[in-house]
């Protein structure tokens, strides 16, 4: 995964972004949202709107080096075990073990073992205190493993420090786990995988499916990530910005395979927002909710992208929109603006418009001005050019566009859109065809090719 450029593509038609999370997720006037957080993200969801819910079909009980146990998924399908509860408790339990002095990698293994045990035992003998039960069992597993380990002297050194029931920790265990999994020493792809595994409670197999790589590859990636952070002490708060970046990458990846990464990102961000009061965390959660709310409208039944302006707004999830706007309002009240809040504000303005024609583009341009100030990102400037084109007319948009590097992803698509609006269909058709050749994903390519075809098919153009 590359460095995901954070930008709101709201404006344009197509918010493209590629799998690598590069900064392609800009708004392009023609497909907007269809791409919104990336083609895989909210992109073409041909399986229907039900995909929005949290994915709870399987619990991550494969064990950390999941390759060894691939194929067994003891939790999935067992009606007697509360999978949602187990996955929710996973980071808490792991955080407690690490706080007690267990090395992260070993603790993570032990927690997975405890989850498997829970699935076996709970149906017949449900614990009164599920979390306490998991901590007890996981800690016992950790001690057993440490004793059995050939490097026992080293392990016992660690074990000797604990367990000591100490005062309540100053920083929430779960929060520390987020920091650890997004540690700056990790590459973005490693941080994403580790977060989904250790905080999200997903199996290695399912993470591999989501990212379309072999399971052995993902198992290695996670193992290496665990080694990288195994020496990190969780005694100081980390940087919230790195955590947000990882969650944003997960959300942007969106939807591929059987795992709904967008929904998972929302779940994890919601959890984070519950343990830390930070306006950018709230801003990111609002941004995700507002984009996710439009998911059902983003693709036609045949999988084709539907531009924002053409979306059936009746398909938008008004509950998610209301929640997103509420969260954003509370965040903005802190008066500590950040890029996620500003992006969410743009999304909120779109969500708030009863029709595309009634969109408050002037205010959207103002938010992009804020974003330019906050990030100085060329991708944001590209989005801004689209918004300017809507607010002040295509000529003004083209002028804004002319100031930008034309090698920017989606630059050509934006130019095509603005030229069409400016009454130059032949130029627009040529640019759409060129933009299609440069597209970084199939859905976007098809969409842009259709736009070119639409203009080429007009009377007198052949």
């Amino acid at each position, binding site marked *: 995964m590359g460095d995901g450029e954070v930008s709101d593509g709201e404006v344009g038609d197509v918010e493209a972004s590629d799998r690598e999370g590069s900064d392609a997720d800009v708004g392009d006037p023609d497909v907007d949202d269809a791409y919104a957080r990336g083609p895989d993200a909210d992109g073409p969801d041909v399986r229907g709107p039900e995909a929005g819910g949290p994915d709870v079909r399987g619990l991550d009980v494969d064990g950390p080096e999941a390759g060894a146990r691939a194929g067994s998924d003891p939790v999935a399908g067992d009606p007697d075990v509360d999978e949602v509860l187990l996955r929710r408790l996973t980071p808490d339990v792991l955080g407690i073990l690490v706080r007690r002095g267990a090395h992260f990698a070993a603790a993570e293994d032990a927690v997975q073992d405890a989850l498997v045990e829970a699935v076996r035992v709970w149906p017949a003998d449900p614990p009164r205190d599920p979390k306490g039960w998991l901590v007890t069992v996981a800690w016992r597993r950790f001690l057993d493993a440490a004793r059995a380990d050939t490097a026992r002297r080293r392990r016992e050194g660690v074990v000797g420090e604990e367990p000591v029931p100490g005062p309540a920790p100053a920083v929430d265990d779960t929060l520390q786990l987020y920091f650890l999994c997004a540690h700056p020493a990790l590459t973005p792809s490693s941080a994403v995988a580790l977060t989904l595994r250790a905080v999200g409670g997903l199996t290695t197999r399912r993470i591999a499916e989501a990212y379309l790589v072999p399971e052995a590859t993902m198992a290695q990636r996670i193992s290496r990530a665990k080694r990288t952070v195994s020496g990190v002490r969780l005694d100081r708060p980390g940087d919230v910005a790195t955590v947000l970046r990882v969650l944003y990458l997960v959300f942007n990846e969106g939807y591929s395979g059987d795992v709904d990464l967008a929904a998972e990102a929302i779940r994890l961000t919601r959890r984070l927002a519950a343990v830390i009061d930070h306006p950018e965390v709230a801003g990111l959660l609002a941004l995700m909710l507002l984009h996710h709310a439009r998911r059902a409208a983003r693709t036609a039944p*045949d*999988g*084709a992208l539907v531009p924002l302006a053409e979306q059936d707004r009746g398909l938008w999830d008004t509950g998610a929109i209301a929640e997103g706007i509420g969260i954003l309002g509370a965040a903005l009240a802190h008066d500590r603006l950040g890029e996620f809040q500003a992006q969410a504000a743009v999304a909120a303005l779109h969500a708030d418009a009863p029709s595309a024609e009634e969109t408050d583009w002037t205010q959207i341009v103002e938010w992009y001005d804020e974003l330019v100030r906050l990030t100085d990102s060329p991708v944001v400037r590209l989005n801004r050019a689209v918004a300017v084109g809507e607010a002040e007319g295509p000529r003004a948009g083209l002028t804004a566009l002319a100031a930008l590097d034309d090698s920017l992803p989606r630059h050509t698509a934006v130019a095509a859109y603005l030229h069409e609006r400016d009454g130059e269909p032949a130029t627009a*058709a040529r640019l*759409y*065809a060129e933009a*299609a*050749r*440069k*597209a*970084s994903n*199939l859905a976007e*390519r*098809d969409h842009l*090719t*259709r736009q*070119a*075809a*639409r203009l*080429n*098919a007009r009377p007198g153009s*052949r």
Partner: protein
Amino acid sequence: MAKYLMLKHYRGAPAAVNNIPMDRWTPDEISAHVRYMQDFAARLEETGEFVDSQALAPEGMFVQYDGEGRPPVTDGPFAETKDLIAGWMVIDVDSQERAIELAGELSAAPGAGGKPIHEWLELRPFLTAPPTVTE
């Protein structure tokens, strides 16, 4: 079972019969084409013959080792390269006859005017692991 690669070319294959570029089709013709391709892949998944399908961007580059301590040399993209792969589908089928049958179906995908493109697809068998029984 034997795996076959069906290669689709941007350039380098003999000209198709219905050779009008896609941006000169109507939007409905594009939709029909996309649907045909999706249905084709879905059908192969149902029959248990689908392995993988990927599309490639038209522009890439050549990369070459340039000696110890030096960064790799890159070159291209070459506009005149004769052969340019657009994408592929990998199938796992019982026979070469079946592979040919499927490639023929894929080549019949509709293009301009809703008529089959008759695109030439390159069909290449995978080299396999050696058999256990050798005598």
